[in-house]
C-alpha cells in the first residue's frame, strides 16, 4: 500500500513538473484592472490591448487578468498573487495601484512591472500614460464648427489634473475656431453611473448646449444626444453603434501597440524601466472616424490631428489663465510636469473649478 502511494506521489510530482516546464516556455503576461472588463470604457480598452498581445504574439505568451481590483493597499494582494503565479510582466492599469504595485515590485526584482498614469518608477517598474488631451483639442475644434448656438456641455467626474487638462484642451480647440465659444460644465462625482450621466446630459441640453462631451465612461450621454437629434462625442471606446446620427468622433484609448512592444521586449530580454507619455503620434490615442459632419469640418479635424501627430502641442502659448494672468508666453510650450499637475482653468471658461 505504501509503495502504491509513493508511486502515485512521484507520478503526480512528475506530471506537475512537466506542467510547469511547459508553462515556463510561454511568457506569462498579466493585467490588473480597476473596473470590470464589461464597462465598455476604460478597463474594456485595456483588455482589448491584452487581447491584441495574445493575437500578435500567439504561442509565445499566455495572459491573465484580474478585474474589479480596488485601488489602495488592497491591490497589493492582486499584484503579489500574479508575481507568485509566475507572471513575468504585470501591468497595473489604474492610478491608485501605484504604491501597492511599487511595494510588490520591490519584493520581486525579477518580475517586470508597468504602471499606467502614475509617477513613481523603480528599476523593474516603468510607467506609461496617454495624452488624451490631444484628442480633446481636435474635438473642441469640431464642436465649435458644428455647434449652432456656440455652447457645448461637458460632463466630468472628479477635478483631478487629467480631467482639468482635458477641459482646457477642448476649450483651446474650440477657441481656435470661435473665440466666444461657451462651455457648460457639470460634475457628476462618479466615473461610472450611466443614469447620472444621462441626467447630466439632459440638464446640459435643457440649459442651452447643443453638443455634448464627457470625461465619464458610459455611452449614456451620447444616447441622449441621439434621442434629441443633437450631437456629441464618444469616450474611451468607439460608440458609433449607440449613436449613429449623433457621434462626431470618439477619443479612444488604444493600448495594444504599447503592450505588444513591452511584452516583446521582455521576450527579447531588452526590457528597461521607462517613462512614456504616448499620444496621437504613437497611435495610443485614436480618434474614431469623423462622422455626421460636412467635409470642410472633417478636413479641418484631420489637419489638426496631423499637426498634433507631427509634434505640435495644443498647450502652446500665448495662453492666459481664467483670471487673465499669464500661463504661457507666445510660443512657449507647457512641459509635461505642468500638464500633469494642472489645477486651473484657462481664460474663457465660465465655471468655478471645485477644489
Amino acid at each position, binding site marked *: 500500500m505504501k509503495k502504491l502511494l509513493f508511486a502515485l506521489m512521484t507520478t503526480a510530482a512528475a506530471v506537475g513538473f512537466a506542467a510547469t516546464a511547459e508553462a515556463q516556455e510561454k511568457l506569462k503576461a498579466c493585467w490588473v484592472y480597476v*473596473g*470590470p472588463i*464589461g*464597462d*465598455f*470604457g476604460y478597463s*474594456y480598452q485595456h483588455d482589448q490591448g491584452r487581447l491584441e498581445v495574445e493575437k500578435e504574439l500567439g504561442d509565445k505568451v499566455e495572459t491573465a487578468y484580474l478585474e474589479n481590483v480596488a485601488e489602495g493597499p488592497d491591490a497589493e494582494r492582486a499584484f503579489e498573487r500574479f508575481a507568485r503565479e509566475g507572471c513575468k510582466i504585470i501591468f497595473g492599469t489604474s492610478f491608485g495601484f501605484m504604491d501597492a504595485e511599487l511595494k510588490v515590485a520591490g519584493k520581486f526584482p525579477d518580475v517586470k512591472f508597468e504602471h499606467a498614469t502614475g509617477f513613481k518608477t523603480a528599476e523593474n517598474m516603468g510607467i506609461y500614460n496617454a495624452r488624451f488631451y490631444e484628442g480633446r483639442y481636435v474635438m473642441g475644434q469640431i464642436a465649435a464648427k458644428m455647434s449652432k448656438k456656440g455652447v457645448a*456641455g461637458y460632463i466630468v467626474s472628479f477635478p483631478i489634473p487629467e480631467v482639468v487638462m482635458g477641459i482646457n484642451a477642448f476649450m483651446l480647440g474650440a477657441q481656435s475656431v470661435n473665440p466666444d465659444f461657451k462651455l*457648460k*460644465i*457639470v*460634475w*457628476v*462625482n*462618479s466615473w*461610472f*453611473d*450611466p*443614469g*447620472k*450621466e*444621462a*441626467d*447630466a446630459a*439632459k*440638464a*446640459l441640453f*435643457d*440649459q442651452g*448646449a447643443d453638443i455634448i462631451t464627457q470625461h465619464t465612461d*458610459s*455611452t*449614456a450621454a451620447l*444616447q441622449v444626444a441621439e434621442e434629441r437629434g443633437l450631437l456629441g462625442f464618444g469616450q474611451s*471606446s468607439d460608440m458609433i*453603434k*449607440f449613436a449613429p446620427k449623433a457621434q462626431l468622433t470618439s477619443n479612444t484609448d488604444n493600448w495594444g501597440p504599447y503592450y505588444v512592444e513591452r511584452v516583446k521586449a521582455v521576450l527579447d530580454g531588452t526590457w528597461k524601466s521607462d517613462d512614456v507619455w504616448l499620444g496621437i503620434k504613437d497611435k495610443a490615442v485614436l480618434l474614431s472616424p469623423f462622422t455626421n459632419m460636412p467635409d470642410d469640418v472633417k478636413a479641418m479635424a484631420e489637419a489638426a490631428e496631423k499637426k498634433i501627430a507631427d509634434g505640435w502641442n495644443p498647450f502652446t502659448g500665448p495662453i492666459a489663465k481664467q483670471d487673465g494672468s499669464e500661463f504661457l508666453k507666445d510660443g512657449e510650450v507647457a512641459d509635461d510636469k505642468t500638464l500633469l499637475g494642472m489645477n486651473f482653468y484657462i481664460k474663457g471658461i*465660465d*465655471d*468655478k473649478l*471645485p477644489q
Partner: protein
Amino acid sequence: MDITVNILLTIATAATPLLIAAIGELVVERSGVLNLGVEGMMIMGAVAGFGVAFLTGSPWLGLLASVVAGAMFSLLFAVMTLSLATNQVATGLSLTLLGLGLSGMLGTSFVGQPGGRLPYLYIPGLSDIPVVGKLLFGQDPVFYLSIALVIAVSWFLFRTRTGLTLRSIGDNHASAHALGIPVIRYRYLAVMFGGACAGLAGGHLSLVYTPQWVENMAAGRGWIALALVVFASWRPLRVLAGAYIFGAVWIGQLHLQASGGISVPTQLLSALPYLATVVVLVLISRNKRLTLTNTPAALGQSFVPDR
C-alpha cells in the same frame, strides 16, 4: 415653459427606478423580512431585461423578463432565510454580491451592443396638449406602472384584510402563527413581490433610463431604495414623495451647475439620500408612538415555527 416640462420629465425618469424598488422592499419589510439584496435583484433584472430585449427584439418581453428574473432571484433569498432560517442581513448582502457577479458574467456578450428602448406613450391629441400633455400622457410605460404600484400597495396594505394580515406578521410572527396564519407562505410571496419590483426597476434602467447593458449599471440605486423605505417610515405615499424629492434635488443641482448658478458641493448632494435617512431615523426614534405604529416590530428576525 419647455424647460420646466423637461426638468419634470427628467426628475420622473430618475425617480421611477428608486420608487419601484423601494415600494417592493416596503412590502417585504412590512412582512417582517429585511432583504438587503435589492441592488443584486435590480442588476439581475437589468441584465435579463436587456438580454431578452436584445435577443428577441422586443423590449416588452425584456421588461417581462426583468420582472421574472428579479422574482426568481429573490426566491433564492426566500429559501435561505425563510425555509433554512439563515441570517437575513448576511443573506441579503450576499445576494447583492452574487447578483453583481452573476449579471456581469451573463452580460458579457451584451457589452457594447445597443439595445431596444421601450417606446414612450403617445396618445394622439392628449399627448400634444401643451405642458400637461407630455407630463401626463407622454412618458414611458414604466412610469405609469410605478404610480399604479404605489396606489395598489397602499390600498392593499391598509384597506384589505390580507394586507392587515401581512402587517400583523411583520409585527409579531409568533402571534400570527398562533392564530393559524401561514407566516412563511405570506413571507415567501412578499419577498417575491419585492424581487419582482426590484427586477422591474432594473428593467427600467436597461430599457428606458439608459438603454444599454454595462456591468454594475445600477450604481447603488438599490441601496438608495433601501434607504428610502426607512426615510418613508414604511408608508407607501411617503416613499413616493421621498423618491421624487431625491430625484428633484439631484436634477436640480445639475441644472444649477449647468446654468452656472450657485455651486453646491456635489459630493454632499450624492450623500444626501443617506444623510436624510439618518436624520429621519433620529427623528422617528425620538417619537415612541411613531416608531411603534410604523416600524415592523419583527423586522429582520428569523422565524422558526416551534410546532
